[in-house]
């Protein structure tokens, strides 16, 4: 892989001129900033080195997202195996799910993906105010998603599809008592566990983005250093992406 090579202004060693706002000189460890295509030494003590390898951070984040995909991949695998086994029951059970709420949530997440992308675009142009507005919008949509989820699950609980109350071995037991077939009960098991796990990820994403709001306000995330925000955005896109798969698998197969 050929890369553009530049000299470090501090010690003269060759540097990988990766396409990133911040570069670190491997020899002297100085952090360099790119100004008009040339590298210049950043003020001392300005940033800690290892946390500002922009490309490295990206690689790490993508690897992490990959593990998340595999985590859900395992569930999708289980889903497909049981769907093949209980094709008919899955159709019947899916009728019980509220397509309206599902669609609303899909719209919320899709829009929130857009707003988080806009927030990143805004900070790259240095528009801190706009970035904050978009971030708040994203967080709000995430919270909206969770509220919807709460009502949806609550409705199910009331109809006896989920039995927390009283018994510790509830779900399976109640599903049995509700005279639901094995296949349908497997469908609900998968539904609760998969959307539950996804909901947990939404929660983490919302917290992460809320933290990013703080970072932007304190200028820890700014025009020339937005790695954190970008990686949080990536995480949010992943949350969205997983939902895009979950939605048809549970709501649209009836």
């Amino acid at each position, binding site marked *: 892989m050929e890369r553009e090579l530049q000299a470090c202004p501090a010690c003269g*060693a*060759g540097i990988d001129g990766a396409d990133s706002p911040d570069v670190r000189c*491997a*020899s*002297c*460890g100085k952090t360099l900033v790119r100004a008009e295509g040339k590298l210049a030494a950043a003020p001392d003590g300005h940033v800690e*080195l*290892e*946390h500002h*390898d922009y*490309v*490295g951070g990206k*690689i*790490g984040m993508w*690897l*992490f997202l*990959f*593990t*998340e995909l*595999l*985590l*859900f*991949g*395992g*569930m999708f*695998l*289980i889903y497909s*195996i049981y769907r093949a*086994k*209980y094709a008919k029951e899955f159709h019947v059970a899916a009728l019980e799910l509220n397509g309206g709420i599902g669609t609303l949530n899909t719209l919320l997440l899709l829009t929130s993906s857009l707003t988080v992308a806009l927030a990143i675009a805004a900070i790259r142009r240095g528009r801190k105010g706009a970035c904050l507005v978009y971030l708040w919008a994203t967080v709000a949509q995430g919270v909206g998603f969770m509220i919807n989820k709460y009502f949806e699950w609550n409705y199910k609980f009331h109809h006896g599809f989920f039995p927390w109350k009283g*018994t*510790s*071995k*509830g*779900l*399976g*037991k109640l599903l*049995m008592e509700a005279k639901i077939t*094995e*296949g349908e*009960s*497997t469908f609900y*098991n998968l539904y*609760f*566990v998969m959307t539950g*796990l996804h909901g947990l990820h939404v929660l983490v994403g919302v917290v992460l983005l809320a933290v990013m709001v703080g970072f932007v306000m304190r200028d820890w995330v700014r025009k020339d250093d937005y790695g954190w925000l970008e990686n949080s955005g990536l995480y949010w896109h992943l949350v969205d992406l997983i939902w895009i798969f979950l939605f048809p698998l549970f709501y649209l197969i009836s």
Partner: protein
Amino acid sequence: MSDGVAVALEPPRRTFLNHRTGLLGWILSTDHKRIGILYMTSMIGFFCLGMILGLMIRLEMLTPGRTIMSGRMYNSVFTLHGVTMIFLFVIPGLMASFGNFLLPLHIGARDVAFPRLNLLSWWLFMAGGVLIYGSLFVGEPMDTGWTFYAPYSVKTAASVSVAGLGVFFVGFSSILTGLNFVTTIHRMRCPGMTWGRMPLMCWALYTTGWLQVLATPVIGITLIMLLCERLLGVGFFDPSKGGDPILFQHMFWIYSHPAVYIMILPAMGAVSEIVPVFTRRAIYGYKYIAGSTLAIAIIGYIVWGHHMFTSGMADSARLVFSLLTFFVAIPTAIKVFNWVATMYKGSITLEVPFLYALAFIFLFMIAGFSGVVQGAIAADIHLHDTTYIVAHFHYTMFGGTGFAFFGALHHWWPKMFGRMYNRKVAKGAWLGLFIGFNLLFFPLFIMGYLGMPRRYYDYLPEYMRWHHISTLGSWIVAAGFLVMIVNLLRSFRSGSAAPANPWGATTLEWTVSSPPPVENFAKIPHVTHGPYHYEPEASG
């Protein structure tokens, strides 16, 4: 070679060991060297616990029927032995301990890509360890075997959930280490450190990193589902609720077979480091060893079904998995051939690390050959779930990873702590471990062929003499281990100071003083040749 004597007195140097003191200075340090040593010491601690449990198992097996404990307790003891040794010793293995210490030194960097994440993975690892052992105090001790097979693991009253959560934490820690190392190798190699000039240890760490990233999430989700099944009563694996127990085995082994290579690849990397040093030769077939590392990882990812030849899965699946299993033997053979070829026309010294490397090669060959026997599906029908399997994986995990770990310990001890150990005593300990190990585990091959199933508390008297030999071996192993550890620890008091390069090795970690300075390299090196530069006249 210098024997580590006669090092001129100089004022105390600032090293990574003495620049900060106190417990907090260690457990909150983001220095990769300190984290490596944190891992190393905690793993040796867990190894000691696991070893005590192992000794208890062997003692119980001394006679048929009850010897020292009840059957229920025996189940918990072998479960805890397995969980400890697998998840708290060999999975982090040489990757987290020596890998952490060496990787930045090997590639000429000052630290890994994400030092704080690195510390977090150690904390997660310890949290996992605490949860696993903590589960002993909440309800009955777990008794599922380390494989957590459903539906038994769903039905047992023992505290599987807490321990399962502990394993989940360890898995998370493993993922973070993996992605950290992969990023480090991509981003932080010093100038001139091309892929082809990396020490083979780095190739092993790189491959292992990918395996951890690709495989560990699967066990994560499997454990989450198992926990849901136990706590919420959903039915993924319990057939009485419409689940499928064989599905659990698939999910479990999709992770746990690649995990076998997570355990062994860094060990092979360490051996690939040790062999050239003591033969004074560039490793034979660098490209082929590096390539076979990748090949093992790739093939190893798709052979999990050979753990299930008698599970009742479809016969066609058994065919495919048997075929693939044989393919994984080939890159392993390539490694062995190249190591042996490296000794050809070398200039060999039988230093302690090299003795461990030789033992590794020999024991790992036995492990590999017994693996090939089981890969033949007809033979596995007989051998599966007997002590033959137990012998096989102890030859890989202990004879392989364990011996490589001890070898690495003796190889890099002077670098880590700046002290030389007593080599005569170390060789004695090696001999004890080697002989004891074979006495301990070879009889299990024989008993396995004679039909002794594994995880048996009681057995037919016909097997007794083999059990006697095995138990005797366990005591010799324990004695050897004890001598080894005491000898190493004594070096702090009576060992001579180690020079920067006591073995005359050529990789970058030996160019800095022992122990290394905090920042590793005063000036980032510029690499102009391959890692095993013993024959300058021949280097191209």
